[in-house]
């Protein structure tokens, strides 16, 4: 047996390695993403375009208007999604809770559909503010229903069933709206609901970077009560956490993050479940103070990777981002469930 001191040293090495690995992956994927596409631009040119803001005008446009905002969207929104998933898993004490599974993405979609289809008939254009507001409201309302169900349902499987049902109801209403929508709206909504990081503008970027980063900082500052909450509600309270207030804060944060991501990138599946789980496995700990930043970084890496595949796998045809995240995320979830059940029996 190795001594506790020795093992603690090992743990520290592991944490450092995970963070360095994530940062390296992040950097490599970022460069890769800027570098690849239908128009090839050399690394030297890219560096000049980004840092000196000089170079060929078309290439300049491609890098600044298309590729950079998209990369930032994938990195920041992906991180936000992973964080949102981690918060929901903490809240429900349930490893496969996440914005997509619990019907929160569908709630957002419903409200975005209302804005895109119904509201557009009365006003000329919708701003990203309104979209975010709609998606956030949808997320909160769907979350509200899940919470209502969670109050009387303690079983984890039944809670998920409730989430899936809420998701169906939202989808049904959305479909109903689509029946009466203009073709152009349907195309817009469909494009939105497939999830994508393309078409992100700098105005969008400014907005969601602020929202997501503020949320990230707040969540990071909550890592102490979150660690207490992982022990269960009663213990958290006995450590001095005002559990009622904390629960509200937790749910607000996760809904705000999920709503914001969904508003800009559409509903993206599996990032919220798979990433925090992978991160915990890598770190071999569930300590929020480590898992929160690592999940945020990991979500960015995961989405950059998936977006890279989405863009390049069948170029020039682009896959929707959810197609790729599901392909890589779902096996992780399955593996996790098998592991858990294996550990129990």
């Amino acid at each position, binding site marked *: 047996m190795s001594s*506790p001191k020795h*093992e*603690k040293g090992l743990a520290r090495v592991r944490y450092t390695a995970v963070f360095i690995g994530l940062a390296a992956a992040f950097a490599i994927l970022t460069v890769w993403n800027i570098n690849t596409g239908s128009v090839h631009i050399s690394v030297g040119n890219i560096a000049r375009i980004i840092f000196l803001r000089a170079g060929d005008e078309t290439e300049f446009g491609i890098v600044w208007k298309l590729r950079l905002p998209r990369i930032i969207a994938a990195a920041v929104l992906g991180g936000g999604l992973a964080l949102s998933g981690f918060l929901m898993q903490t809240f429900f*004490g349930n*490893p496969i809770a996440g914005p997509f599974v619990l019907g929160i993405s569908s709630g957002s979609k419903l409200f975005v559909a209302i804005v895109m289809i119904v509201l557009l008939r009365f006003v000329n254009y919708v701003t990203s503010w309104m979209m975010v507001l709609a998606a956030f409201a949808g997320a909160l309302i769907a979350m509200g229903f899940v919470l209502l169900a969670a109050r009387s349902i303690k079983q984890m499987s039944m809670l998920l069933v409730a989430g899936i049902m809420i998701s169906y109801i939202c989808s049904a209403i959305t479909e109903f709206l689509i029946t009466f929508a203009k073709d152009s709206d349907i195309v817009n909504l469909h494009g939105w609901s497939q999830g994508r990081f393309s078409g992100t503008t700098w105005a969008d970027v400014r907005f969601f970077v602020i929202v997501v980063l503020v949320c990230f900082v707040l969540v990071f*500052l909550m*890592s*102490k009560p979150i*660690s*207490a909450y*992982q*022990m*269960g509600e*009663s*213990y958290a*309270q*006995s*450590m*001095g*956490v*005002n*559990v009622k207030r904390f629960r509200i804060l937790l749910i607000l944060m996760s809904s705000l993050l999920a709503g914001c991501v969904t508003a800009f990138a559409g509903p993206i599946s599996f990032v919220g479940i798979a990433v925090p789980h992978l991160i*915990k496995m890598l770190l*071999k*700990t*569930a*300590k929020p*103070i480590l898992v929160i930043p690592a999940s945020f970084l990991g979500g960015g890496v995961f989405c950059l990777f998936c977006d890279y595949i989405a863009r390049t796998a069948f170029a020039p045809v682009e896959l929707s981002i959810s197609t790729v995240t599901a392909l890589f995320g779902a096996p992780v979830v399955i593996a996790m469930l098998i592991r858990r059940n294996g550990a129990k029996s």
Partner: protein
Amino acid sequence: MGDYYFRTSDLSVGYNGKALIHDIEINIRAGEILTLIGPNGSGKSTILKSITKHLAVIKGDSFIADASINAMTYKELSRRLAVVLTERIKGELLTCWDVVATGRYPYTNTLGLLGQEDKEKVRLAMERVHAADLAERDFSAISDGQRQRVLLARAICQEPEIIVLDEPTSFLDIRHKLQLLSILRSMAKEKGITVIMSLHEIDLAQKISDKIMCVSGEVISNFGTPEEIFREEIINELYGISEGSFNIAFGSVELPPPAGEPDTFVISGCGSGISVFRRLQKEDTPFYAGVLAENDVDFQVAKVLAAEVVTEKPFEPIGEEAAARARALIDRCSRVIYAPFPLGTGSARIVGLIEAAREAGKLEETDKVFETK
């Protein structure tokens, strides 16, 4: 009132605004151990949860050193009171060290990082419960006994003035029960930490507690020292024991005596008869016992298991009256079991009984009685 460190006043507890138990008056001094006993579902946990602020009280208040718990914030309370609960900890991927370290929560900064001093306290708390070697083990992969000790260490390093434990000994084997309770005992006596807990094992409650509270029904039936509470009628009534009995002196339970007309007489003394009595009880054979001095250890068991016990006053030689009664009963029986014990000058008449039984061909000695089984 200043005399008492922890007290409740006019406390009513229950769920959803309905009082389950009312007029709870607890008064204990610092460093005392209060144990709540009572049947399952009697409301022990409800009272504990109300004291720890996990459950809103219906009426009344509790006071730690005259500070109202109702008025305290969770944060203030967390520096004075720590808990060990029955609920399972869901946490995954937590080492035992991590779990214990959460006890430092009320004292750490915004991010909850442990200082050198905190780490030292975590280490000491783990040592105190003999769990230092568990530090790096996964909390979900240790035994119940280890888990309970780790949770106690967690409570200890929260540096509370009061520790509240809900059935801390459930699921533990006898060795771990004793270990846990002796840790509590030394903590209370050496550090002056007040302990409030519920226990199922009334024999242990009797031995460890300074104060006992009996919980059953709407009001607290009894509150006092173990000497006051542990009387057969109180315990039998508290748990509604109608079959069998609880022996105060031994702190043990006995099953009800076999019914019917006895055909067996047991002659024993100095504890030689106890195993015979229990054996006969298991075989559902009714029996008489005697002649036992009332201070004989056999008497404690015989009085609840035998159909009749022939007795003599303590420290008196066996008298003629008792011997005559024994002889009368032996005459009714076809079998006399003799469990050998030191026959002194006071037991001359017992020797007479044994001889008479042997002559009548009724006598069996214990080594031979159960041999064939």
